[in-house]
């Protein structure tokens, strides 16, 4: 059995669990628990361990979709998660107070992984919060020397999440043919 892995990360509420669920063949095994700290105010339930989804690719091939816990204090898990992964999907919530800090935090936390693989960025909640928008995130990412695909996505729409992952695959290999 050949196993491949894509990691979804981003702040709490950005849509990681939803995005994984929209692609997964199996209901996502979320390990959501009631949060005990400030995150409770933003969202009644928050992922403290990890999200997991699975896409069967062929008889002997599976793509695992992992969501990182949204809270910074669990960052020791991230190395384990990214081991052997083929790329990173960074989900950002356009309604957050300090979007630049979110970019800086996650890009720094996954710096080594991004250098080894590729990333794409999905910005959610642009339906309810149109600003700051895609070009703002391009500027934030450029400060880190990064120029990945940044798409407006609604994590509830499979098409959007699928298009985002497609961009990740093409970024990994522009010679890839459909």
């Amino acid at each position, binding site marked *: 059995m050949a196993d491949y892995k894509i990691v979804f990360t981003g702040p709490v509420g950005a849509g990681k669990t939803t995005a994984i669920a929209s692609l997964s063949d199996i209901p996502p095994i979320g390990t959501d628990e009631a949060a005990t700290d400030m995150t409770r105010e933003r969202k009644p339930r928050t992922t403290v361990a990890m999200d997991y989804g699975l896409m069967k690719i062929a008889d002997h091939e599976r793509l695992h979709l992992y969501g990182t816990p949204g809270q910074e204090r669990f960052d020791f898990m991230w190395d384990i998660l990214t081991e052997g992964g083929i790329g990173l999907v960074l989900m950002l919530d356009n309604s957050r107070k300090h979007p630049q800090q979110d970019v800086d935090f996650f890009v720094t936390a996954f710096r080594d992984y991004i250098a080894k693989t590729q990333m794409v960025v999905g910005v959610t909640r642009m339906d309810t919060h149109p600003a700051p928008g895609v070009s703002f995130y391009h500027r934030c990412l450029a400060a880190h020397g990064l120029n990945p695909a940044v*798409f407006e996505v609604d994590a509830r729409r499979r098409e959007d999440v699928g298009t985002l992952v497609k*961009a990740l695959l093409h970024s990994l290999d522009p010679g*890839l043919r459909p």
Partner: protein
Amino acid sequence: MPVTTVSIFNVPERTSAQFAILFESPGWEKVRLLTMGKPQVGVVDLDSSDPDRVWKEYRKRYPEVPSVILSTRPQEREGALWLTKPVSPAALKSAIARARKGFAPAPQPAHTVVSRPREDVATRAATTALDAEIEDRCCGDAPDIDPRNADDVARATYCIQGHFQALLSHCCALVIRDGKSRAIEGLPGPFVVHRNGIETTIRPNVLRSVCLIALREDIVHLRELVGTAPAPATPLQPLAPVLWQVALWSARGRLSRDIALDVPVRIRHWPVFTRWTETPNAMRITALLVGAPHTPLDAALALGVPHRHLFPLLSAAQAVGLLESLPGHASTPRIREERRSGGDRRGETGAREGERRESTDRRGILRRILGRLAGR
């Protein structure tokens, strides 16, 4: 291929006249409308209160003729291929060709340039109706050009001046600069550009026709709106995706004359393909040109994509300010060939061979994931 005779069944007179005009237009030389006798392919419209009855009548008149069914609802009938309405000319043309061959796989384009990698069979396989429509409207079906042939170059390039794209670009620039809304008057409906979006009731198909004709300045012009504009009557459409779409329609497979065929270009950022029209091969072209500048001709060669896919994408990127020309910059094709001829590899070291095998394996899995995402 020889000429295919086609008869149309169960359409109103007006539609039948439209088919006659379509079959007379350029690119349809191989299809002829037949009003008497037995055609090689029948096209039947099954949208009626009693599709079964229409089918029976059709079969009585044209027994066993391979057929193309046009319908808004799925139709499965013996010896027929169903196209969902609205049907694009490109989809109809390829369906007729497939019916003629007894439903063999989609035909390959007649033109293949010898010096380039072949287009994947999968790329040519039947696309969904929507993809076919996007391809038809944004890319057309022109063959690749020979850059040394002036006629080819003239045919495959276009000038935006005097067309709707130029007016819209100009209008957006003004509105972004001073924040004052402006109406474009003289179009087949209201069209107002606000700082935060476009307000219009003109339907996409109508707007697309507007893109293709030269505008008369005495009829179509900008008017600055004074005072506070009334609340928009329709939801605003963001500027960038509209400008992107207008540029794709205007290009229809061609390259804007503002872009040189032999000067390296770079795409500054990824277009927002979740919200902007994604044309065939758009992601591959973008991934290549965001990473490394190539001349348009080298990019087509490196990726093995037809010019009609590459040119409109570059033209649209130019329209939204995402294209950068880099004269004097080296154009460095950096795609590793997927299949090299066996003889080339004999001198390869073990390490290189291992590396190549690994990259081929990886490409295989990435391609299969892509296939799964596309629902295959």
